[in-house]
């Protein structure tokens, strides 16, 4: 065996062993790697700018909409009770749609079927506000997505996407967020990529954005062609990421740099 082949073999062996998943006990929320000021911003609702979105969501929850002239509150009553824990188990399998849908899509399904209104545009202020309000009710609860026969195909597709190299930089999610998490990219710590606080207020965005927007960011950064927001591919990846973060506590609405 020539030296070159041996070196390649060693490199491959190293790459395979390094791509192992992060042990459950060693997982960290991006929150833990943030600066003191940014953490304080998330901790206090009075200074967390995402509060503006949550309050808008609360108003939308009670507002009648669509041909049915029904508000979310007419069916679900008090969101603080009925929506508690809901965001922690999404994306979830929807029996009627016969596919896995995320929280935004679930809200839009309700909007179309129950309120008989046009679906809200993905990443629109209204959809982000409603999602933030619903997800806020699950703050502090452990993430628990369904991992069963009916979600398996989606979960596996998400995992495959996480491990697949893409884009001109030929990088997979796992290379940064599994293997090189806690190392630095430029000056910043690479987070493990657990979606614990979505929708988040990102200081870089100067506003609230969804997990799909954040994924789009990563796709553009590795110079890959991003998928559409709300696409099947992003929902698959979202389910895998939530499964990967199982048991971690939801922080919605999170603040991230």
């Amino acid at each position, binding site marked *: 065996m020539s030296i070159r082949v041996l070196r390649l073999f060693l490199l491959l062996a190293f790459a395979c062993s390094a791509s192992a998943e992060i042990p459950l006990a060693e997982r960290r929320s991006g929150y833990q790697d943030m600066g003191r000021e940014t953490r304080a911003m998330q901790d206090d609702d009075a200074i967390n700018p995402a*509060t*503006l979105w949550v309050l808008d969501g609360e108003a939308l929850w009670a507002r009648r909409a669509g041909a049915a002239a029904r508000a979310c509150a007419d069916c679900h009553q008090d969101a603080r009770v009925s929506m508690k824990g809901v965001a922690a188990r999404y994306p979830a399998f929807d029996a009627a749609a016969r596919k896995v849908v995320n929280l935004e899509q679930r809200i839009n399904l309700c909007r179309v079927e129950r309120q008989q209104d046009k679906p809200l545009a993905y990443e629109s202020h209204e959809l982000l506000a409603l999602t933030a309000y619903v997800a806020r009710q699950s703050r502090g609860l452990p993430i628990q997505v369904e991992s069963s026969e009916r979600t398996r195909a989606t979960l596996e597709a998400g995992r495959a996407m996480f491990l697949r190299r893409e884009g001109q930089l030929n990088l997979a999610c796992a290379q940064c967020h599994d293997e090189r998490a806690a190392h630095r990219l430029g000056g910043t710590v690479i987070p493990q990529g657990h979606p614990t606080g979505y929708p988040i207020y990102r200081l870089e965005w*100067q506003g609230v954005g969804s997990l799909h927007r954040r994924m789009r960011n990563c796709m553009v950064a590795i110079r890959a062609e991003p998928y559409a927001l709300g696409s099947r591919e992003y929902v698959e990846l979202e389910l895998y990421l939530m499964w990967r973060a199982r048991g971690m506590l939801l922080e919605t609405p999170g603040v991230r740099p």
Partner: protein
Amino acid sequence: MARVVVNMPKQARRGEIIEIRTLAGHTMETGFRRTQHGELVPRDIITLFTCSYNGAEVFRAELHPAIAANPLIAFHTIATESGTLEFRWSGDNGYSATHSAAITVD
């Protein structure tokens, strides 16, 4: 829509220093950015924030283009008497928001 949030104590002792924290939902467009086609995005910011306590102004801030979106303004005042605090934000393109909150001083 909830475009401002004000957080302050509802009750205070006379002479106590109270903290007031305000958040206003605003894009704070600087006026220095350009679109992909090179056109300047016009400035759209909050320019003035004032707080008056029973009619007397206790705090004023002038805001400028370098201030981030959804500005948080936190300040202190002395609880002198029961009454209301009036908060007023005004800015470009006729932007204006008001909020009032009551305080009981004993």
